[in-house]
C-alpha cells in the first residue's frame, strides 16, 4: 500500500532529532488522532541551515516528515514556504488516499516553524 520511497523514508528517516535552542519550532497534530509532528529549524542568513524532526504516528506520518525536512534543508525561507503537503506526497511517489489528510501534516509544521522564527525575529 505504500510506495518504495515512503517505505525507504520510514525505514531510514532523515533528520530525526531535536535542535537545542532552535531558531524556529512548529508542531501540528495531536496524540488523540494518532499523528503529531514537531519540526525544529536552525536559520542562517534566511536559509535553513539545519532541520530536525520528531514524529508520533504511522508510517506515512514518519515518512512525510522525513521527506519534508529533506526538501527544506538548505532552502531559503521563501523557497521552503513553497513546500506544500501535495509536493511532499508527490516527492514520495504518492500516498494512499486515506493518508493524505490525516498523516501528511509535516509541511504545515514546517510553515509554523518558519513563522515562529519570523515572529521571534520581529520581537
Amino acid at each position, binding site marked *: 500500500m505504500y510506495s518504495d520511497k515512503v517505505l525507504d523514508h520510514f525505514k531510514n528517516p532523515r533528520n530525526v532529532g531535536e535542535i537545542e535552542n532552535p531558531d524556529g519550532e512548529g508542531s501540528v497534530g495531536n*496524540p*488523540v488522532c494518532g499523528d503529531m509532528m514537531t519540526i525544529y529549524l536552525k536559520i542562517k542568513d534566511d536559509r535553513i541551515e539545519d532541520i530536525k524532526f*520528531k514524529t508520533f*504516528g*504511522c508510517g*506515512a506520518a514518519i515518512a512525510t516528515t522525513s521527506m519534508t525536512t529533506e526538501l527544506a534543508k538548505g532552502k531559503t525561507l521563501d523557497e521552503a514556504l513553497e513546500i506544500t503537503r501535495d509536493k511532499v506526497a508527490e516527492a514520495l511517489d504518492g500516498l494512499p488516499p486515506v493518508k493524505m489528510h490525516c498523516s501528511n501534516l509535516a509541511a504545515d509544521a514546517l510553515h509554523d516553524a518558519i513563522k515562529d522564527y519570523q515572529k521571534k525575529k520581529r520581537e
Partner: protein
Amino acid sequence: MKAYMDYGAAKPVDKAVIDAMTPYFSKVYGNPASFYTIGFDAYNAVIKARDQLAKLIGAIQGEIIFTSCATESNNLALLGITQRYKKKGKRVIISEIEHISIINIAKELTRQGFEVLYAPVDNEGILDMEKFRELVNDDTVLVSIMAANNEIGTIQPIKEIAKIVHDHNAIFHTDAVAAVGQIPINVKEMDIDLLSFSSNDLYGPRGVGAIYLKSGLRAKPHMIGGGQEGGQRSGSENVPGIVGMGKAAEITLETMKDESKRLKKLRDRLSKGLLESIQESFMNGHPTKRVPNNANIRFSFIEGEALILSLDQIGINASSGSACLAKTLEPSHVLRALGLAHEYAHGSLVFTLGKGNNEEQVEYVIDSMPDVVHKLRAMSPLTPKELK
C-alpha cells in the same frame, strides 16, 4: 527468522484438509442434489462434514447450516432471526466489543426500526452482567454476544448470559469465530440458540463458514433459491470447501486440548517477556479469562501501524487496534470500550498464535521488540526523556 503471529487474521490451510478437499474439485464433482452415484457421493460428503462440525460444538447434524463465511452466518443470525421473529419484540442487544460485522449489521437493524442497545464491558473486556441484566426485557427479540473477542481474547460467561436471555424468552446468538477451536464450546451445555463460526479459523479453506441453528428455530433466509441447506441458505453447495471445513473441524476436535495448552504456554511467555523487557507496556484484556492464543499489549508513546511496519522488516507479523490501520481512522472500538483513551489505544499490538509458532520464535520476538519500540520512541515527541 520469521514469526507470523497473526493467526486471527488468516491461517494457513492444513495439509490434511487440502488432501481431503482435492478429490471434490474434479473427481467427485457431482451436485449433491443429483440422483446418481457421483451426486450421492457429493451429498454424503456434505453430510459427513455437517456431522464433523456438529461434533465439534456438541450439536446434532441437522442443526448445522453451511454459509460462505462467518460474516454471512452473522447476517443470517441477526437479520434473518429478527425478521422472522419481529412480532416477539423490537429490542436487540449486542455487546460494545462485537466484531465489526456484528456492529455494522446492528446498525442496519437500527435503520430497520429495531431498538438496538449496546451492553458495556468492564475495563478488562468482560460483559458487565449487572448492566446487561437491566437491558434484557420481555420486548427483547435477540441478543448477540461474542463467545471470545478477536482483539483482546476475553471469554464471556456465555452460559450465564444465555440464562438471562432465555428468562425473557429471547433468542441468543453468539459469534464464536475466535472461540471455536481455542476453547471447548458445547451449544447444549451453554444453551446457545445460534452460533457463527468460520472455516479458516480452524485451518480450513476460506470461502466457507457455518452457523448452528438450534432445532425448531428458523431464520428468514436472505439467499433465496433452490432450497439448499434446509431452505435457510440456497445456492449449490461449495462441496470442496464444505469437506475442507469438516475435516478441519475433525482435526480441531482431536488436537485442541494439547494445542491450546501448548499455545497458552507460548502466549504466557510472550506476554511476560515483553511486559518485563519493555517499560510502559501494558496488557489489554483480562489476565486469565482469555483464549489461549491471544496476547494484546500496548506500548505507550508510539503508534501501532509504524510498529507493525517495523516488525515486518524483521520478519514478525502481528496486528494492531490503531486508527491508522482502520478504514474509519478511528482506533479500535474494542479498546475504546475498555475505557482506553485514543492516544493509548493507538499503540496496541495484537498477537494471535497458532500451529506454526514455537518457543524459538517467541524468544526471537521478546529479544527483538525492545529495539523496535525504542527506535520509534526515540522519534516520538511524546516520549518522556527518561525513556529515550
